[in-house]
């Protein structure tokens, strides 16, 4: 069972799909949070040092 699961999760197509969904989710979240406006996430804390 574990062996089959390992084979399933190391499947290249599945990995590719996982990455695609991950990138898509980030892009969608960015779109929902900022829309077509330029980002206003604020400056970086460490830029002050």
């Amino acid at each position: 069972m574990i062996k089959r699961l390992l084979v399933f999760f190391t499947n290249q197509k599945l990995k590719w799909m996982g990455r695609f969904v991950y990138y898509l989710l980030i892009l969608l979240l960015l779109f929902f949070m900022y829309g077509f406006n330029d980002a206003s996430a604020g400056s970086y804390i460490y830029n002050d040092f």
Partner: protein
Amino acid sequence: MTPYGSFTFFFILAVLLAPTVILGLKGKRFHTYNMFVSIIALGIIFSSSINQAVALIVFTIWQVVLIKVYIAYRKKNNGNTIFYFAVILSILPLVLSKMLPYFSVVNFVGFLGISYLTFKGTQLIMETRDGLIKKDLPLSRLLYYILFFPTISSGPIDRYRRFDKDLEVGISGEQYQLLLYEGLNKIFLGFLYKFIIGYSINHFFITNLRFIAHSHFEHQLYYMYAYSLYLFFDFAGYSAFAIGVSYIMGIKSPENFNKPFLSRNIKDFWNRWHMSLSFWFRDYVYMRFVFWMTKKKWIKNRNLLSNLGYILLFLLMGIWHGLEVQYIIYGVYHALLMVAYNSFERFNKKHKWWPQNKVTHIIAIIITFHVICFGFYIFSGQLFHKGV
């Protein structure tokens, strides 16, 4: 324009780096073009402040002349006084930029990234002193290293010899494909950290704390953990962007974070948090102090020497953040933690009081997490500011 601060910046980067990607995928050399991109990007970053642009140019000339003169001197001589003098001159602009705001309204010395550029310059002088850099450095490479735009504002602090190796190595199309993929992956991680998680923590939680918390203590407690996470996602997000863009430009800038909230102890934490800075301080402050003291035989007790080295390192690191009380106390706090952990480690080696197993490992991570968060609470200044 703040690097990685807006989507516009990323659109400009995408246009500027398109030829780099095409050249890289074709397996052709692109560093000359990237040098040109660096100049354009620096122009865009500093276009909003002429004062800062002038300060950057003067600072760069100062560092380059200093490094070149010291390399020329080191070929024939190796005097202590000249070396100390060169190091002092190298850090002088940074010291002035930190001190000036206390005496003047206008800070004509400071500019975005002065600290990180100073670390690079001082490192070159120290490595020349150690005989690690013997040859004269080509001006274009030296300038490219100091002014490498992806890491200009807050690092990570690269080492010249490592950077130079990346410039020397030819990258095939297949190798560049992997670099590009890793770079894009890091950029997406940066968006997730800074623009989604970091922004949400700050915007939805920290700014609304007065409505969420029911008492002053609760407010401070929530703030401590929220600020710690916000600081991590903000800085790790920036670092992911900086490293990702570096990868696309064929430079493997060092990592800055390695799951710092999973540290087992304070020593482990400093090997995982803002790594390029803590390693810089370890190599050029702590190690030098210990070596110097051992050579002079002023302190023979190795443990005391190590503790004094940690105190010096963290005090300097605290002061580097600024002369405000929160940064100095933050430095003292970490110095004390390091000394305490050092003593505990020695005690435990002898008495085996704290066993090494999975349960103690998890407990150690939980304790370290809270101790670290309290450190960030000090760092935030919330403890010292009335009425917040």
